């Protein structure tokens, strides 16, 4: 999406931190997920890293998830959210590419 929306490479590279830094902040470790305010918890749900991190933790280890405030029952929801994001962004990408050859 970012690459397709950007008109120049410089623009794409400048926008990138805007996406990547929240990924770091909202993943659930820098600030423990459990310690975020409710509204922030919702907001963190917009970022892929939060779901990917939760899902990876649950899969990789049998312990430690509670410390961060994640839940062992969360894997299905995380998977569904990631899949939903995948469909949305792929759809957006196709739409953007299609709109590029509209005739003026």
């Amino acid at each position: 999406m970012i690459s397709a929306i950007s008109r120049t490479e410089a623009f794409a590279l400048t926008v990138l931190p805007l996406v990547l830094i929240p990924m770091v902040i909202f993943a659930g470790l820098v600030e423990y997920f459990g310690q975020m305010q409710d509204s922030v918890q919702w907001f963190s749900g917009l970022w892929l890293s939060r779901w990917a991190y939760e899902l990876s933790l649950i899969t990789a280890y049998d312990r430690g998830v509670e410390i961060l405030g994640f839940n062992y029952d969360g894997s299905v929801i995380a998977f569904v959210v990631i899949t939903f994001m995948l469909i949305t962004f792929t759809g957006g990408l196709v739409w953007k590419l299609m709109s590029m050859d509209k005739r003026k």
Partner: protein
Amino acid sequence: MKDCPVCGSKNNNTAKFCVDCGRPMSQVQGDSAVITIGRGENNTVILNNPAVSNFHCELVINNGAVVINDKNSSNGVYVNGVKITSKTLKKGDVVTLGSKFVFDWEVYSASGRGLLCTTRFLFQGKTEYIIGRDPSCDRQIDNIKVSRKHCRLFLEGNSWFVEDLGSSNGTFLNGGKVAKSKVISSDILTVGGIPFSLESIVSGSKVSLGETAITAHHLVYYGGNRRLIDDISLNISPGQFVGLIGDSGAGKTTLMYLLCGINRPSGGDVKINGESIIVHPELFKGQFGYVPQDDILHRELKIIESLEFTGKLRLGHKFDRSEISEKAYEVIKKLNLKGKEDVIIGSPEKKGASGGQRKRVNLGLELMTDPGFLVLDEPTSGLDPLSDREVMQILRKSADNGQTVLLTTHNISVTNFKFLTHVIVLAQEGKLAYYGPADEACGYFGVDDPVYIFDALKRKTPDEWKNAYRKSKYFLNFSYNDAKPKPHTSMRAPALNTDFFNQVVTLVTRYFTVTVRDYERLALMLFIAPAIALLVNMLFVGEAAELKALFILVISTIWLGCSNAVREIVNERSIFKRERMVNLSIPAYLTSKMVVLLIFSFYQTTCLVGITSLNFNYSNGFGLFLILFYTSLLQLSWDC
């Protein structure tokens, strides 16, 4: 100026086919007329064959009745197999001159236009013609859209038939695809987008690359509230090499975009061989070759690879590797690039092909599909005079082969003007100041060197130029096409490659070649994931660090995916747009991107999980790998 005998449209005197209905123009017209037929040069219809006498016979047309008289020919005139000296012809009579020629005739009764009689002669020495690209064919057509053995014309009884020989792009008769069908002289047979008449095949006349006539009918284009193109009509015939000139901002590019269907006019119409490109843009995708001003090329590829990949992408469903490679070498030869096949295209910053060579490759991509109509945006800007001339020479050759060529240019020196057959001069505000022969342009503007045409343009207002042109003789000959065109469908564009898997394979191969060619970047991409994994192993020790280590893994996966993907589409934007105009499928394009990027993601995820698992005790390492890989897939669609 002459009228088409079938639909009555105005055509250039040189037109072989009517611009509106596509019918051949070589018919004889009149309420009453005498048509003489023979080998001598003073005949109405000249048949240059030893079997025909100097003055063989005459046709007397009087109020619709057609009488044929033998003029003491050596080999005689036969009607329905009976030798005659004089006879009134009925519809369906088969006339033979000597034993060699079948004389095919037809009488039209076009209301209000008198009676028209078409005369055509079919050489009957052979009764079968194989048409195709293979040199062994009776009529070889050197065009990539024609199959090796495309179709067969044969005589059965007194009628000619055409039969498709399993060609890839099909054989079309008057616009309809046929397997086998009877052919009469007024039919137009289209093979690989190139129209023929029965006569042109059996008489052995020269076959040209394409017969694409473009007509613009009262084109108007508004940008916002400003009128950028002001009521422009044009007749461009096959084989014309037209220069489009005008001051900056006069609307050259706008007019060019309208003519090749990139932009949609606010009013008026553009027709190719009589069919509107606005109503049926999809029919003409393969018939246009639009060459953009910037060299839109993958700079990492070799010249030959660039041509081959474009060939495969556009025609790969019908042609195998060797055929496309053959075609690419043919284009290389045409472009005078022999010996430079393996030069990397490069860019001005990175050493590679020279500017002139890049321009030629840029043009070559379009030549791969032999389009009937080549449109070029400033093909020679920024070139030294020698390269400039070379490009013009190549284009002139294409035009001489029957392709229609239109280019915008700023270089209007005397030398450059000599290559052009016609010029279009635009005054400000998109008003047509002149469209006519290139060598008469100076006279029209009252200057002695074409470079002063722009100065001359400033002497009158654009409107005055527009009105002056409407009163000139050129207007009637080149611009006037008010006749109501008949719908016509004889010249369908050939099928381009729309096969999803074929496109994906070509795109993946090309994308892979491009990526691998950039050694430094490739090495870095391969190095970075193991390096991060090793750093993680080094820094994080013991159970307490598990959460942090995994956090770094997730972030790395996302981050690496980003840096791979985010440059992709934005960097290829212009290439994407150019190929979209031809036949690129968006799903195929995206799939190809995903396939290559996922191969890298696969490698990177494997490294990250594999190496860190030496240090950390994952309960489900494979599951973790799958999740991270899935994450990177999402990341790609986000970043691409």
